[in-house]
């Protein structure tokens, strides 16, 4: 796949504090690449360095389309984390202004803007003043502004924050659509469930450093072990003694058994004791969300798992 953007060894410090260091990743044409991390991990800093809004202390940012460091501003769509719109202007006016800044033909921009407004349930709002829009509507307009000029690289910083589930779906569909049509997409988020569904590859960052980088499937096989949730009244001690169980988590009425990486689910299920009370049983992989929370809350679970420690 064609590399649209590659970031290598990026580093940035504010005063004496190193905010990000040694960040390297690529974004390919037609893929959705996600940067994940808790608040303050350095996601926005990374993106701002890419956009030339900040200047990195170390490292390189290479854009395919200009074959160099110069930012192809007109071919990038950017939805920043800190975002808003001029308040006392009409929706269409601001969309056209932003398209004009990208040197996009205005008549084409107008047609596309109307199409997108319709798609995002904002039909007829083009003549409405921005200050009359709800927060969600405003966010849709910002999103439209970032894709109106058909960018070849789209950078979305926390695109889903503050959206209701319906709007989230709309955004997700549109982002998938754009990727399908060849746009390279870099998105940052802390909403793991959404990212898990749509990202092709991910880069997890914590305290400014890389934690995980790879395709979604690789990451899952590598880090997301199986876990088995059993509803029923059972003795935790008994469950703990089962083979290939790393640790257990006891909740009211249910127990979650975290299994070894090498576990074979079929075989493992067969050797469950017969006296086990099973009202409901679920076996699935640890979600990205859980990996994320473990990292974010500094449990450093991954490393501990590797060391084979039991964590209860």
């Amino acid at each position, binding site marked *: 796949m064609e590399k649209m953007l590659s970031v290598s060894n990026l580093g940035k410090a504010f005063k004496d504090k190193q905010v990000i260091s040694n960040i390297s990743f690529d974004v390919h044409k037609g893929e959705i690449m996600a940067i994940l991390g808790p608040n303050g991990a350095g996601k926005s800093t990374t993106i*701002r360095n890419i*956009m030339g*809004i900040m200047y990195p202390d170390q490292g390189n940012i290479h854009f395919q389309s200009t074959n160099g460091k110069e930012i192809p*501003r*007109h071919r*990038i769509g*950017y*939805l*920043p984390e*800190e*975002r*808003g*719109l*001029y*308040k*006392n*202007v009409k929706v269409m*006016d601001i969309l056209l*202004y*932003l398209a*004009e*800044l*990208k040197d996009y033909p205005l008549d084409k921009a107008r047609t596309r803007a109307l199409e997108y407004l319709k798609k995002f349930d904002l039909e007829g709002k083009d003549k409405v003043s921005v200050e009359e829009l709800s927060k969600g509507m405003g966010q849709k307009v*910002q999103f439209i*502004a*970032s894709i109106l000029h058909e960018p070849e690289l789209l950078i979305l910083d926390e695109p889903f924050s503050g959206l209701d589930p319906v709007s989230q779906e709309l955004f997700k569909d549109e982002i998938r659509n754009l990727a399908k049509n060849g746009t390279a997409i870099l998105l940052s988020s802390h909403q793991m469930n959404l990212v898990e569904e749509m990202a092709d590859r991910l880069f997890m960052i914590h305290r400014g450093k890389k934690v995980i980088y790879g395709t979604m499937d690789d990451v899952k096989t590598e880090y997301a072990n199986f876990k088995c949730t059993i509803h029923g009244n059972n003795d935790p001690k008994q469950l703990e003694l089962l083979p290939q169980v790393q640790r257990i988590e006891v909740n009211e009425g249910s127990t979650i058994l975290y299994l070894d990486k090498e576990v074979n689910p079929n075989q493992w299920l067969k050797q469950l004791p017969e006296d086990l009370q099973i009202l409901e049983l679920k076996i699935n992989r640890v979600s990205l969300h859980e990996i994320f929370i473990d990292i974010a809350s500094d449990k450093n679970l991954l490393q501990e798992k590797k060391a084979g420690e039991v964590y209860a």
Partner: protein
Amino acid sequence: MRNTMKVAKWEIKRNMKNKSYLIGLLLTPLIIIGFMVIGSFFDDSDEESSESTVVFVNDELGVYDDMVSTIEQTGINWELMQTDLTEAEAQEELEDSEETAYVFVDEEGLENGSLAVYTSDDIDSFFMSEVQVLTGPVQAKQMEELGLTEEQLAGISQGVQFVEAGSINEAAESGEEGMGSMEENPLQTLVPGIFGGFVLLSVVFTGMAIFQSASQEKKDKIAEIILSSLTPSELMQGKIIGYFALGLIQTLVSTVLLLPVLMWRFDQPLLEYLLVPELALYVFIAILGYLLFASIFVGVGATMADVTTAGNFQGFVMMLPFLPFVFIGPVLSDPNGLMAQIGTYIPFTSPAVLLLRLTSLEQWPWIEIGISLAILVISVWAFMKLAGKIFKVGILMYGKNATPGEIWKWLKA
């Protein structure tokens, strides 16, 4: 540059569609007109109650009676009296009298074609043009006394004029030099200067809107979206140019609305006075003044999260355009004095002080003007640079005002 113009166009368009800007645009000149009309009511009532000008005539030719009837005919509000004081005595008398003038009609003056007039210090500025009506009776007398030989006719057609021999203090120190200095209408020199000042004032006020605009950009959080398409300096320059155009529009609209009213009120050909070569220099000075304040404002605006949270530092900077007011008094009383010169060399005050001095001086101090303009141009360049540095960092700083310390750090970076 293309991006700069796009931003400028946008700022203009955005404001032109904004109701409060449009209202301000029309309201400002209307308010001025309103005050003038109200002012003229007060003026009228003042005139009625005020004492009329007392004019003493030392008449050696016997034209006094004719003068009285001429004044009655023209309806000028004068109290005419006869006197036999000499010129020297009259000057002494004038030291402590108000609204008084002495007119000397004698053979000597008649031969020279100029008759001496002495006025008290506070005399109305139009007095010297009004006094010319008295030439009528004098000339009639001249014709009557002389036969009408060709020579004499030539002498008559040369005409006779009353020439101000000076109001008392000038006459005392400069004697004959004071003669004939006020032949020109004072409005003629004032009008272009006043216009220049008006341009300066309205662009500076519009410049303050830049400050609003820069800080609003932060409040609306749109800066980062805009900056994904252009550079901070393009955004800043676009704002400066855009608001400059808005200021000019304001000036233009005000002029179109105000000028006819002023012409009617003062009954003077103001447009003629306005369109003189000096105007170009005045407008140039005003533009430099605008650029200076605009760059300061756009920079400071970018350091503030919210207009309402201006700290001491920002508040102080906001007051800079009002600094020239300190100089108005001293400059008017002595346009070549020390204060005037100091004001000319401080970039923040020089546009206003220069305008003030140039309109009140007859001899322009070209060297001072040159130095002052050079200082101004260099300051504009320097402040643009500095503002660019502040703007670049400040516009992306959310949620808090920058401290002077932080601003200093950005400047050094």
